[in-house]
């Protein structure tokens, strides 16, 4: 029951998962990173303090984060259709995955940047740095080890989300497990999927850890 044909299916599904997760991780940082930065610098007493911006963005992030992904997925089908033309398949899945990850990334980035000692920002201000210089030369480089770990956490989260997306036809390992493992009672497929997911998650975490360690070791 687990033959070469099946093997091809598993490999393809694995590739689809990696592809979906990689692109949505990337896109979620394209939007989530600036959002996280804005959340930090607009907060009380920070370099671009702005109560309105901070509260509006903070609320949007909170609202989006409180919708369970499986519901969010269905909720934004019209938007997915508008952008991709369909809501089924690997490419279509990237839309809900990315949108769901943006607020998550924003909060992770916010947490990382908030750990930076105010003294460093004060030192840069005392030299006459403008806000952009503080963000690009102090906040982001100083938080790099922590940001790197954040990328690993986001990626791992998206692996999980992508499996959920798979259940509504998103492609990848989720779809494979659902159609073959669950609907056709092929336990072997189910287990293979689980094992591949475990390996993927382990790999991402290890990569994230070692990158973060490399960055901080260089500074030690």
């Amino acid at each position: 029951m687990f033959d070469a044909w099946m093997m091809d299916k598993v490999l393809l599904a694995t590739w689809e998962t990696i592809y979906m997760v990689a692109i949505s991780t990337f896109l979620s940082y394209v939007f989530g990173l600036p959002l996280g930065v804005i959340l930090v610098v607009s907060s009380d007493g920070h370099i671009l303090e702005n109560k309105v911006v901070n509260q509006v963005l903070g609320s949007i992030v909170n609202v989006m984060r409180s919708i369970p992904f499986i519901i969010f997925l269905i909720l934004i089908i019209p938007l997915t259709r508008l952008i991709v033309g369909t809501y089924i398949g690997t490419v279509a899945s990237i839309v809900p995955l990315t949108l769901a990850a943006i607020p998550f990334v924003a909060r992770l980035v916010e947490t990382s940047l908030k750990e930076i000692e105010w003294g460093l920002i004060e030192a840069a201000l005392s030299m006459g740095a403008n806000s952009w210089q503080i963000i690009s030369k102090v906040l982001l480089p100083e938080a790099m080890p922590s940001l790197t770990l954040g990328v690993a956490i986001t990626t791992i989260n998206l692996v999980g989300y992508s499996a959920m997306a798979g259940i509504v036809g998103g492609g990848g390992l989720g779809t494979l497990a659902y159609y073959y493992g669950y609907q056709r009672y092929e336990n072997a497929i189910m287990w293979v999927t689980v094992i591949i997911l475990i390996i993927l998650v382990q790999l991402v975490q290890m990569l994230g850890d070692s990158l973060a360690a490399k960055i901080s070791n260089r500074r030690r």
Partner: protein
Amino acid sequence: MIEVKHLTKIYKTPSQEILALDDVSLQVEDGEIFGIIGLSGAGKSTLIRCINMLEKPTSGQVIINGVEITALEPHELRTARQKIGMIFQHFNLLSSRNVFDNVMFPLEIAGVPKKEAAERVMELLELVGLADKANAYPAQLSGGQKQRVGIARALANSPELLLSDEATSALDPQTTRSILGLLKDINKRFNLTILLITHDMNVIKETCDRVAVIAESRIVEVGRVIDIFSNPQTSTSRSFINTVMKRDIPEELLEQPDSAAPSERRLVSVSFIGKSAGQPLISSMIKKYDVDANILYGNIDRIKDTPFGYLTLELTGPADQIDEALLYLKSHGLEVEVINHV
């Protein structure tokens, strides 16, 4: 010249208002090392941050070389700050950059061309004695080395003024001395005005020309360090001086009754400043007048580069002779204070 005029800072919290600076005015002359000493919470940290507007004063003005810092637009303020170096208690070096790039940082901000900036960085590292550490990261340096990097960084854009925020408070006494030595050297070499805050009277004693004593958000005393040491006007100043020079006389000595003696006995404290510290004035006083001097306590020290001596004497003899002897000391430029008539 730095002029601080009627500076007031009030922190507003939802529940209360905290007065951090209360109508503070002072002047710092070009090329001097000016110290501000106070206990924690006295307002000195707020004061130094108002000089480069890291804290925005509630009212009052800061004028540096004729430019009213407190009235500048944000972009003008950024340019002005490039000419005001600052060093910090906890160094505040970027852990993501090595020593070289940390010193490069303010030059990047100022937009100095790369090649020129790199030369300047090496020159500065040479100056602070860390040229061999250019590639090290801050985490690999000792506290003293970190502060040297901080100083190099603060000097990068050839500032007109250096602000020092408790720069030696996190360092051991030996390292403190070497950092203070470096600051004095820089002050002399570049005629750079330094404004420093500290809670350590030793720092004032070793480096400063003038000092302002701040207590409860106000400046209570200001003057030449030597004058404050030899003749403090406030209890705050006295208690700071006591931390580095013991001037209190044990109670027993003040009380000791000596009714048998026909002559008078007085305790006096005598301060010698500069050249007079090297002259044998006490012995010539004894020879000249009919008084005996018993030395209860003595100390000779340096205030910045000036010798400063301090003696507590017990003088006995006829009252008129003691009076004359004291006049004699005063006429030779000594500060004389009668502590107690017995």
